[in-house]
């Protein structure tokens, strides 16, 4: 543990998980433990994290976990925090879901809980495909990416969950990347003190779906931010704050070329010039929108 995180001990992840080597979700889970401390109850929606915790009745997460079917996480969290409130217990309820559970099958219940401003933290660990079932495309898969169900590369852009959640006018929305742990930890800590619905989308590059060496997870997660493909921002009560690591993205001239991020991944190995331009346009429009909000 370099990065000045030594003082942040965590029990959120116990030894012996069933994650693949280099798993970004394991990294994110450890950071959640560092940020949120002990008084946490977690709802894990179907996905890699249902498997990573290992085989019951034991569990490799240091939190109590309600594992639940794909589309029910936000609804169960709504019931849970209300039950704790009735029992006068101070527990932070956290929903942990992948991009499939968030952008696709679970979106109605996510949107419903956001509209009701339910009091819990929703974490979307975004690895941009259905990795647990073998890497099929999801609504969150970006343009041009090869997946097991889009062998020719996905047509159409990533579903913009960030903006969709902002449009719900919830008190706290943020993006983070496992490449920048301190930024994620700070955001989680701030989210903890906010009342109402809190949404954080964490980029979790998956070595097995994105096709890069498992030792490079943090590096790829950083490149996504440096090339401005993935913004690090936080929106509290409608006020946008761009993290230091992403400030250079506000101007097109200072952005690192997108190909530095794409070239390290196998899923973009056959990318055409046209797809590349499409992705650049996507990044431009992403930042145009962020700039228009600030």
């Amino acid at each position, binding site marked *: 543990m370099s990065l000045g995180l030594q003082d942040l001990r965590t029990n959120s992840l116990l030894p012996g998980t069933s994650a693949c080597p280099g798993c970004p979700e394991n990294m994110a889970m450890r950071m959640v433990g560092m940020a949120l401390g*002990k*008084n*946490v*109850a977690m*709802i*894990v929606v179907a996905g890699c994290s*249902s*498997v990573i*915790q*290992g*085989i*019951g*009745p034991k*569990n490799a*997460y*240091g*939190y*109590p*976990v*309600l*594992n*639940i*079917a794909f*589309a*029910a*996480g*936000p*609804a*169960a*969290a*709504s*019931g*849970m*925090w*209300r*039950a*704790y*409130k*009735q*029992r006068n*217990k101070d*527990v932070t309820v956290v929903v942990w879901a992948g991009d499939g559970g968030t952008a696709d099958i679970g979106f*109605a*219940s996510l*949107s*419903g809980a956001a*509209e*009701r401003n339910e009091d819990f933290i929703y974490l979307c660990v975004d690895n941009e495909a259905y990795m647990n079932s073998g890497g099929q495309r999801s609504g969150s898969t970006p343009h041009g990416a090869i997946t097991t169900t889009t062998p020719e590369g996905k047509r159409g852009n990533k579903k913009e969950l960030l903006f969709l959640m902002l449009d719900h006018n919830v008190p706290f929305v943020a993006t983070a990347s496992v490449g920048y742990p301190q930024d994620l930890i700070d955001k989680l800590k701030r989210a903890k003190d906010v009342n109402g619905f809190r949404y954080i989308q964490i980029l979790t590059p998956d070595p097995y779906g994105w096709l890069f060496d498992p030792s490079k997870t943090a590096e790829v997660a950083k490149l996504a931010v440096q090339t401005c493909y993935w913004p690090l921002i936080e929106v509290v009560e409608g006020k946008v704050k761009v993290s230091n690591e992403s400030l250079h993205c506000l101007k097109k001239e200072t952005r690192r070329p997108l190909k530095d991020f794409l070239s390290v991944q196998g899923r973009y190995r056959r990318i055409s010039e046209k797809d590349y331009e499409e992705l650049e346009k996507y990044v431009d429009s992403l930042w145009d929108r962020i700039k228009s909000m600030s």
Partner: protein
Amino acid sequence: MMKIMSGNEAVALAVKFSRVGVVGIYPITPQTTIIEELAEMRARGEIDTDIVRVESEHSAMGVTLGAAVAGTRAFTATSSQGLLYMHEMIWWTAGSRAPVVMVVATRAVGAPWNIWNENTDFMSERDSGWIMSFASSPQEALDLTLQAFRISEDPRVFVPMMVGMDGFILSHTKTNVYVPSQEDVDQFIPPRRQPYVIDPETQESMGNIFQPVHYMKLRQSINDAIQGSIDVIKEVGREYEKVNPLSDYKTLNVQYKLEDADYAIVTMGAWSLDAMEAIDKLREKGVKVGLYRIRYIRPWAEQEIRRSLEDKRAILVFDRATSLGRAGPLYLEMKATLQSPMKGVIAGLGGVSMSKKDFYEVISNFIEEVKFGNPNKVEWYYPGEVKYVELGTPRSAY
């Protein structure tokens, strides 16, 4: 105290009396007035139940499960398409052994659209791992809902329970209902108990991957808990007399003029009362016929049913539900329980009304058939003029 009320009002009152902590609500006809009534009670300050107005039935059961595993008493209600939409979460709740209570105001399932009564929605949850009772009056809807909290939260059970009632026929029709006092209900329903609570202190986790043999053991434990709940249900039923002195819940199912009967009619739900009137008329003519009313689908009271029906000459089972391509589900259950000559009648689907005259006609015909041979068959009964249904294109079948 007696009060005139509908089945839905009676259920809402039972939820109030049970001091439920969280209710997940989503409207669907004909269940709607249960949740409206609860919302009004909350607005008037009569209950401090937390009412969560969710965006779908799937979420209604999700909220209910979440609240239950985090330690409060939880309730929801639904019907028809809504029940089917929450089907996944109904199973998830059962597999979590989470005691929760749900009321189903039954209704036909589309397509085509049909809002009227039928029990197929309810019956199609038979395999999900819930205790399932079915009311025949608003009174019973109230009584069974109160008992459901006691039964599902009994440490010998710890299985969710649903109470069915015929949509519109019970949900919206007002009759006299004995209303117990809050004090009596408080005596009857103890503070919430459940197998485990998800809490940072206890570090309990639920629902992660199980090895095949442990998964199978869990399924068996649910099976055994439901079968074993028969004694608990009777015990709770006897104790319920302190809450409602007019009640009789000593047995799971209910008999009418059955002791000396040669022929037994089997029914479930509201139309049992019409069947009873038809039986009265047949009795006047000297026909020895009686009624056996199924009040519990799960657990299935096999011994009780055998004891009551095994000496009957022939049995006629009425189903207001189908298992398409086979027969009525009640008929199939009875066939698996008894050797007796038996006939199944499917009637009253999608709100087709069955009068006591229709019951009289079907029962008399059945008794004639028995006299002239073995009545072993399944019939779809239409009152009035419909006699044939053509097999053909979907349109011509109507």
